[in-house]
């Protein structure tokens, strides 16, 4: 991909120009992306991404550049250019540069490499999903299925002497069902995926996923709009964990802490959530969609307990934030590709299981909203204000699920909502999704058992 000699020259050029840390990230990625609309392929492309990202630190400040051009002199010129931005800044103390010492390969081997699987087999799986979804009900007017797979080979080297190679295999379906009835259109969605090779599909239950998307769309078509107001909210297990991802996960990323840009600054050791809440980010879970063997700075991923029984324990940290905060990386430095500088990001984030059964949570709820499927969300990490759109939800009355309601959103402040979690189920499950932030679009896991929040603001139409 790129020779050790060239890497050494880049690192040397950076330190010669005054950088106290430099890093090279090289990437060679095989991709398959297929988009199918009913039985017709909208797009189907097999491609390869290739490029080099170069990052330098001047104290706690950073510069980044990238290119797909492997020309040695151009790489050196780019390195010098980004360093030149700091020529008028205050002097930096430069530590001795360590020599790259041997290649450390940390490779998770897939049994079935995507590049060796016939394109037609991938398309056949998609057709089966479309067919299964369309057969679910006549009101399913359209099935839209996206497939992706990636074999990403990376080299990460830096002036601390690190030189690592890693192979990453990821694959996922994004399955949307559209139900239409009396002029109303609703969408149901599932997105199963894993950090595995094509063997992930050996026992893949096509009908289960296609029917789940179709069922969800059918459940909402023709439903009344949700009434706006404040009420108890029960959020289903699995990808319902996106709530904590947005509500407090981003605010626990060290890049925001280091810039005094989070509601959790200075609160380590303090009670920030209900006693029932233990929040974990774990990038080392085997085969999970948000997992990595090493992060995008070469640090080994690990289980990080962020909040334990309501008390804030630590943050998710990348190298630059660790330097700013005087701590160590927690293996949380991530980036979408060589086009992005890494920063602290989540991997698989979840609320750990509690003691209530799912039935107990419902039977103890007199009036509220049951959120079966969350769609997407966002957060302002400074204030903790978040919002989520809900794809599938129902009213709960006297301990029973009653009628479906559409168009609900959940809003609140992360710190406040964490304290209002008053029941946590024993049925932990992790779902798969994407997270969009400053180092690009990343695959993440978000999970939780069924949880209840005692009082939330629900947005609706009526």
């Amino acid at each position, binding site marked *: 991909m790129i020779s050790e000699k060239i890497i050494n020259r880049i690192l040397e050029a950076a330190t010669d120009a005054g950088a106290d840390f430099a890093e090279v990230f090289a990437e060679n990625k095989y991709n398959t992306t297929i988009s199918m609309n009913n039985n017709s392929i909208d*797009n189907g492309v097999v491609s390869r991404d290739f*490029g080099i990202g170069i990052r330098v630190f001047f104290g706690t400040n950073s510069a980044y550049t990238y290119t*797909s051009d492997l020309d040695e002199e151009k790489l050196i010129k780019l390195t010098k250019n980004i360093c030149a931005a700091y020529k008028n800044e205050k002097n930096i103390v430069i530590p001795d540069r360590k020599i790259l010492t041997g290649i450390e390969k940390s490779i998770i081997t897939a049994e079935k490499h995507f590049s060796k699987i016939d394109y037609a087999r991938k398309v056949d799986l998609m057709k089966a999903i479309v067919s299964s979804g369309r057969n679910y009900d006549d009101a399913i007017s359209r099935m839209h299925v996206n497939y992706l797979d990636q074999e990403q080979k990376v080299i990460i080297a830096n002036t601390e002497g690190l030189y690592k190679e890693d192979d990453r295999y990821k694959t996922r379906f994004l399955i949307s069902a559209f139900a239409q009835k009396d002029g109303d259109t609703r969408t149901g969605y599932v997105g199963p995926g894993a950090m595995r090779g094509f063997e992930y599909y050996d026992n893949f239950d096509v009908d289960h996923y296609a029917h789940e998307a179709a069922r969800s769309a059918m459940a909402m078509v023709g439903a009344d709009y949700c009434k706006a107001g404040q009420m108890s909210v029960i959020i289903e297990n699995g990808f319902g964990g996106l709530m904590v991802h947005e509500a407090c996960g981003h605010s626990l990323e060290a890049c925001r802490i280091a810039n005094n840009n989070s509601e959790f600054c200075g609160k380590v050791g303090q009670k920030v959530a209900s006693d029932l809440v233990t929040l974990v980010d774990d990038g080392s879970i085997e085969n999970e969609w948000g997992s990595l063997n090493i992060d995008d700075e070469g640090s080994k991923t690990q289980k990080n307990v962020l909040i334990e029984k309501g008390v804030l324990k630590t943050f998710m940290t990348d190298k630059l934030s660790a330097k700013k905060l005087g701590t160590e990386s927690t293996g949380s430095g991530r980036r979408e590709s060589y086009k992005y500088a890494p920063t602290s990001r989540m991997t698989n984030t979840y609320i750990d299981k509690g003691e209530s059964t799912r039935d107990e949570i419902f039977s103890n709820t007199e009036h509220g909203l049951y959120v079966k499927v969350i769609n997407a969300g966002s957060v302002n990490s400074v*204030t903790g*204000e978040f919002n989520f759109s809900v794809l599938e939800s129902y009213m709960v009355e006297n301990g029973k699920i009653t009628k479906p309601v559409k168009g609900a959103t959940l809003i609140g402040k992360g710190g406040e909502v964490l304290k209002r979690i008053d029941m946590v189920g024993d049925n932990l499950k992790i779902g798969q999704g994407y997270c969009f932030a400053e180092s690009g679009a990343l695959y993440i896991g978000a999970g939780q058992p069924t949880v209840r929040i005692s009082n939330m*603001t629900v947005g609706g139409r009526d």
Partner: protein
Amino acid sequence: MLSEKMEKEILELCKIEGLEDVSLFYKNTSSVFISVTEDKIDKYNSSENVGINISANIDGFKSETYIEKIDMDAIKEAISNMKNTSAINKKDYKKLENIKTNDCLEVENTSYISALDIDINQVAQELKRCYSQAIVLDEKISSVPAVTFEHHSSTTILMRQDEERITDTESYCNGSIAIVSIENGRKSDGNAYQVAKKFSDIDYDDMMKEAFNESIAMLYAESIPTGKYTTVIRNNVVADLFAFFLPEFYQKSIKDKISKFENQIGEKVANEMISIYENPLSDQAVFFRNYDDEGKKTSKKYLIEKGILKNIVNSSSDKTEEQNFTANAYRDSYKSSAGTSLTNCFIEGGEYTTDEMIKNYGDCMVISSVDGIFAGANTANGDFSLISKGYLYEGGKRKGSVEQITINGNFYDLLKNIDQLSSDRYSNYYYGGPFLLSPAIGVKEFMIGGL
């Protein structure tokens, strides 16, 4: 930039491998980003990047892929991938008319500035000046996390075998500032963002004032009861919201049964004060395209004129036989296929300023910002429910600031229910979407969710 020699070699190799009607689309992009905090350059990013999209007719089927590493091995692999996918994708190849057959006059982009020509020192000085002033504006200010500047420039080239090549250049920049205030342990932030053609057009003092005012005001914000309010939605929020729903005007959305504009051309779909148009060659906006990404000459066109739906835009991927091409084929990048998209869009303004609209209403809610549009708005049905902030007015005077509310509605209903438009407009652009210049709007009986 790809050399002409390499272009020829790629085309020659494609020909040898049996590919017909080969098109090369490539984009050479440059960008710089600089962020200042604590009186220092916090982040500096710079890039120069090129990628090539190759598409061709293989045995009657359209096939395409892209490469980033430009050498003959990569090109051979790309051709092999195209061959392996074409017969399975079964996308019928539609021959496009020749580039430049229309004998149209090309407009020169006189406002183009390459990112490589940005004077980083000059930018850094201005950002540092802004930071130094912002941090001492008020003792409640706890931090100024970032004052930023970003400049993008690109050259788009489309060439086909045995045809003339076409080139378009584009450039734009943006600036932003965030200010965080704190009082009695309560934090709030204010943000301001401007899109412009060049660095000197960005008014950092104006942004500083806007971010500061919002940050301080929101320290005292409270929620309000759920209900229907006469509401003024500020131009920046309208720009965010309407830019998200512009795909409702795409033929693809009609084909996919998402848009409700099917068979509505010539029908009244909005209040008659509403006119929305596209101009791909505006020198006041982000895009500057003489040709779309299928080589068709672009032109100004109305989407809605005085409330009447005038155009649904298309590309070869979705155009029906009865429709004319609207020259709206665009790619997000060399990685994506040419789909339908709008470029520079403009909502025509009204008679009164936003302040005058507020005075005219007297008692009203003013929505000043929304978050999470991608989560809370749905192009499949036009519904939106978005977390918002704003101000409550009584008798035309500001009574207090408001947070923890949602604005709730439907895009199609909103078009019909707009009661007033402001004369002052705001431009919105996020990478990958259309540019939109929008006025503020006034709406009566607008649903707001709160307490």
